[in-house]
């Protein structure tokens, strides 16, 4: 009978973790892209609509009549007005997420990262949560954080019920929507990233999914409004009207149907991730 008792005794497992594994992945992934000046510039540009809207808010309350002449959603400080703001941010969401997310798993698969990650005490959920948190952080940077800033700014330059609305109701609506949209965007983008070993292909598929299906849906909707359901980003905005109490974004598709489609995207994304992420080495 072998004596295994002679084994190494120094090792002791306290079972206590300083931070969850997903957070270790997320903090490295969030910190890394900020080193790029190009991305920083893009993020600043992505805040321009928020700065413009903030300026209009200021003038709306300080110089009322003058700015109301501008009309449209720019002067709308109700919840639907912020839903419109998210619509303006769509191009930035497309570009920023392509830069941040398209290579998150692609790179790990290509660079043998999966074996390094999964030889550590973390599971698929930790890994996906960590990578997803990176995407969500940058999604929030161009959507939710500007809304928070606008709400705080609005609160400072207004008073009474409007101020309370901007401090409580709109941030809550925006948070709920952005959490859902950010999580689903993250799952879908990670699924695309997990299927590719070249970043360029991940970006291409992401752009095709977002811009391609949107264009296709718009053309098809000319013949049948219900075909607008084919557009990927349109479903998010249409479902978002439920959160912001806005009128439907799409004519032929109810917001509830769009919400179901968004949840379906999430399910498909998760299934693909489960199928594609294997802790084996990719030796080129």
């Amino acid at each position, binding site marked *: 009978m072998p004596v295994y008792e002679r084994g190494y005794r120094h090792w002791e497992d306290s079972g206590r973790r300083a931070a969850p594994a997903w957070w270790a992945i997320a903090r490295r992934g969030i910190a890394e892209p900020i080193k790029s000046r190009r991305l920083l510039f893009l993020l600043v540009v992505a805040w321009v609509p928020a700065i413009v809207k903030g300026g209009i808010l200021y003038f709306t309350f300080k110089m009322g009549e003058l700015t109301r002449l501008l009309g449209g959603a720019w002067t709308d400080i109700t919840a639907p007005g912020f839903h419109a703001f998210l619509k303006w941010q769509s191009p930035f969401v497309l570009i920023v997420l392509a830069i941040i997310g398209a290579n998150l798993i692609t790179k790990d698969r*290509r660079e043998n990262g999966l074996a390094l990650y999964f030889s550590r*005490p973390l599971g698929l959920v930790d890994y996906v949560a960590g990578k997803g948190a990176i995407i969500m952080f940058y999604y929030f940077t161009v959507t939710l954080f500007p809304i928070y800033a606008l709400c705080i700014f609005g609160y400072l330059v207004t008073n009474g019920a409007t101020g309370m609305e901007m401090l409580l109701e709109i941030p809550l609506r925006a948070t709920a929507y952005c959490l859902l949209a950010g999580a689903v965007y993250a799952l879908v983008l990670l699924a695309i990233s997990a299927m590719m070993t070249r970043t360029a292909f991940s970006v291409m598929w992401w752009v095709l999914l977002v811009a391609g299906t949107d264009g296709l849906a718009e053309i098809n909707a000319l013949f049948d409004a219900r075909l607008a359901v084919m557009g990927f980003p349109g479903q998010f905005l249409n479902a978002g009207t439920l959160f912001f109490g806005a009128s439907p974004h799409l004519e032929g598709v109810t917001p509830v149907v769009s919400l179901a489609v968004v949840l379906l995207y999430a399910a498909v994304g998760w299934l693909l991730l489960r199928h594609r992420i294997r*802790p084996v080495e990719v030796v080129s």
Partner: protein
Amino acid sequence: MSGFATDRSAPVLHAERVSKWFGEVIAVNDCTLSLGAGVTGLLGLNGAGKTTLFKLMSGLILPSQGEVTVRGNRLRREVGLFRRVGFCPESDALFDWLTGREFLSLMVRLMGYDSAEVARRTDEALELVRLSDAADTRIGGYSKGMRQKIKMAQALAHDPEIIFLDEPLNGMDPVSRREIVDLVKRLGGEGRCVVVSSHILPEIETMTRSIALIHHGKLMAEGDITEIRDAIEDRPTIVAFRSPEPRRLSSFLAGQDLVVGVELDEFGRVVARTDHAVSFYRELPGWLLAEDLPVDEFQTLDDNLQAVFDYLVGG
């Protein structure tokens, strides 16, 4: 809490009737293997199933049949057990965009340590593989030997009990090679379970005498090289002696039951063949003393790893 109990009477690492197939290809077929403290070399020809068995044992892939346990706990089922495991992959593709320090910090942080502990262990691991000077250089700028070292460092930084090293000496210069061999031996000597996979037999032989040999997906032999050699019955072990009295030594050895043949070779050496090398070596000192037989040196000609490997796999 960690949620798993440690059974110290169980083998550190145990594979029980493990099989793995990919489609219709059986990569590993019904392998049972128990490993304890010390260094074990996992050997096999390319395509023998060595890498698959290595990944099965390190918990990177799940077996199609059977199970792998660490101290009685299933590795993939209890991910917390990976805190006991250090894994150094074969491929030298790494996170090229990070510096050595950033890479190690990430790898250590994933083990669940706080920032102070991460910094301490990162520095220690860099020092251990002598990469402190290059710690803040991007991995993309590392030489092949340095990449190999940083991979070793990430496998060791959290002080694991079980260490898997896949081709650890690939691309290293002779000095680094020596350092890593010494390090591996030291880790084994500390009582850790170190599994080294390599297809370069002299490399393995410099680190350990304990091997597991896989061929066509089957575990062909496991244990000390001499014991395995001894168990190969159709190939007697060959021992050569240099003696000032070769004829007297030959005639004495020829009369022993453990010896199946004796001859004098062209170098004037007495060459004996034995079917039971372990017993032969045990008896030999007594024989020489009792008979007052002078022997300048003796050498086993074919219990080295290459010979064992060749006999077993027909190389």
